[in-house]
């Protein structure tokens, strides 16, 4: 079973690399907000916005690297270093909850599905309609 999962993951990775795919921003189903502008998304990812409009806490998930991350960052109009600096600054004060960087998009999907108030981004290919995740924005 473990081997099967590993092989499947490798296949998916190659597929994603092979095909230029769209990046989508996903949230846990508990999030009441329906859509997010780039500005709002930037606020969330620069940790300036820590709560959803309904007052629930935002949990930010991140990818450690990859094409998906690159496209996401370019969507936000920031470099990775800029974002890291912002995070450093914010994290240092202790005001914001630390974003969790994961290696695998599947992991992000599962984590978002599992965590109420969570937000993350993955390639569209990885997204499945099942489980408690929905797309809140699409990266152009």
């Amino acid at each position, binding site marked *: 079973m473990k081997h099967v999962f590993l092989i499947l993951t490798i296949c998916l990775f190659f597929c994603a690399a092979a095909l230029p795919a769209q990046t989508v921003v996903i949230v846990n189903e508990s999030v009441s907000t329906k859509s997010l502008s780039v500005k709002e998304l930037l606020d969330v990812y620069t940790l300036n916005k820590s709560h959803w409009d309904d007052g629930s806490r935002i949990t930010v998930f991140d990818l450690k690297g990859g094409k998906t991350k690159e496209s996401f960052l370019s969507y936000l109009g920031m470099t990775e270093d800029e974002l890291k600096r912002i995070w*450093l600054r914010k994290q*240092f004060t202790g005001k914001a909850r*630390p974003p969790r960087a994961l290696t695998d998009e599947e992991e992000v999907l599962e984590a978002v599905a599992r965590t109420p108030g969570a937000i993350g981004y993955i390639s569209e290919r990885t997204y499945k309609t099942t489980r408690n995740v929905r797309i809140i924005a699409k990266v152009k």
Partner: protein
Amino acid sequence: MKRSSMLRFTVKQKIQLPIILFISVLSLFMFIYFPYEHNAALRDSVGNEVASLAQMVSNGVTLGLENQDWAGMRSSIDFVRQSKDIRFVALVDENGATFSADPEDFVYDPALAENDSLIIGSYVVDTELFSGEVVVGSSTRYIEGQVRKLRATTFWAALITLVLGIFFGMAQANLIVRPLSLLRLAAIKVGHGDLDTMVERRSGDEIGDLASEFSRMITSVRLAQQNVQDANAELQTKNRLLDTERRQLARTLEHLKATQAQLVQSEKMAALGQLIAGIAHEINTPLGAIRASISNIERALEHTLMQLPELLSTLAPEAQRQFFDLVSLSLSTRLTLSAREERGLRRSLLARLEEAGFAHAEEITDALADMQLFEGWEPFEDLLRLPNVKSILQVASRLSLQQRNSQNIETAVERASKIVFALKNFSHHDASGNMSLSDITEGIDTVLTLYHNQLKHGIEVSRIFEPVPPVLCFPDELNQVWTNLIHNAIQAMNEQGHLIIEVKQAAPWIETRITDTGRGIPDEIRDKIFDPFFTTKDAGEGTGLGLDIVRRIVEKHRGEISVESVPGQTTFLVRIPLVQDSPPVSS
């Protein structure tokens, strides 16, 4: 060694003060040093702690940036923030500007980095994304609290040490000083003469030894004092004994003095006795001569009275005239002849008478010699040629004899009266006790007169007297001097020799030298001859006071006496001052 009165410490104080001083200093040191040191040590350790916290945060930051492990970074910061007394954690960039900090609004100012109430620790952050350092600040409240606690503790500890130290210092001082005080009291008592004081030994240390030694010393002193008292008592006894003896000696001395005076007196008496014996002899001689002469005269007168008328009747007038001429010639003739001269004259007379053819030359010579007519007989040749010449000459010589004996009596009387005169001079005594002017040579002559009898047989006397002025003196005492010296000289010469007496003036003295040709005075006794009781004569013969008396008399006249002697020539030199300018030395 005058000590300042101001700074006079008792032994007790001398012990107490350093102890108290030492303990005070120690307490003060404890009170100041320990908290200070503790403070420094605490700051040091807090500094290290803070620095290691900063390192931890720095590691967290690096991990956060490189591995995106923000939760790890956050938990390290939270750990630091939760640590005690941490005031802030700051991320400072290379320019010193605060990049971010917890608490959020904190701005780190490097200029105020470290002060008394703040301890800063920092650690470098060096990543591609961010370079700077993590600074952690801790308040010193904990340290201050610790130090305050320690200060309180040390304060009480110091206080207790001080109190206990003072207490023990005083106790120790008392412990040391009490036996000393006892010793001092004992010493004072001993000083006041109480030698029964004993000092109890209370400790085994040097003071205890001192107490023992002190007791031993007192015992020694008591013994010594006892000895001194005994010795004193003995001394007093001996002193009394000595005093008694001294008094006895004083009595003996007085007795001796009296005896000496008696002896001096008896020496004088002895000298006088000798003198008197001599004088008696001297007077006896003329008296004998007078007696013999008177007896001669009586016999001759008796004879003459019987024979003269008968003879005259047988003589012619011419013969009678010649007879009386012969007698008167005889009477007018005074010859002093020695026996030898007389023998010579007699022989030549006899020869001439025989030459002239006289019948009875020998009888005539005898008769003429009796009449001392050794010459001038020629006018009486006719008379001498008469047949009865023998009876004529017998009568004539008896007449002449009467005359001659009368002359002898006269001479003897003269001699006796001369002696009496000398005696009178000799014993002349001025009862007033004052000096009188007297010629020294007269005194010497007087003595020579009195000693004539002893001198005339074998001693030749030379008187070499220069004219000297009379001097103030005690003449009779000086006579005693001459008597003793001349008497000694006669004895020294054994009545055979030459006595030279010189008197001359040699200012300021009149010098008298009495020289004899006797046996001399040996060198070894010359210094002693003037000492009283020194005598070379057999015991009982001389008193040994003769020259002592001479010396005393000469000194009484402020004169000098000395002696020079070699065998065969001994000279006593007596110097009497020409002028007596002060009263005589009382002897």
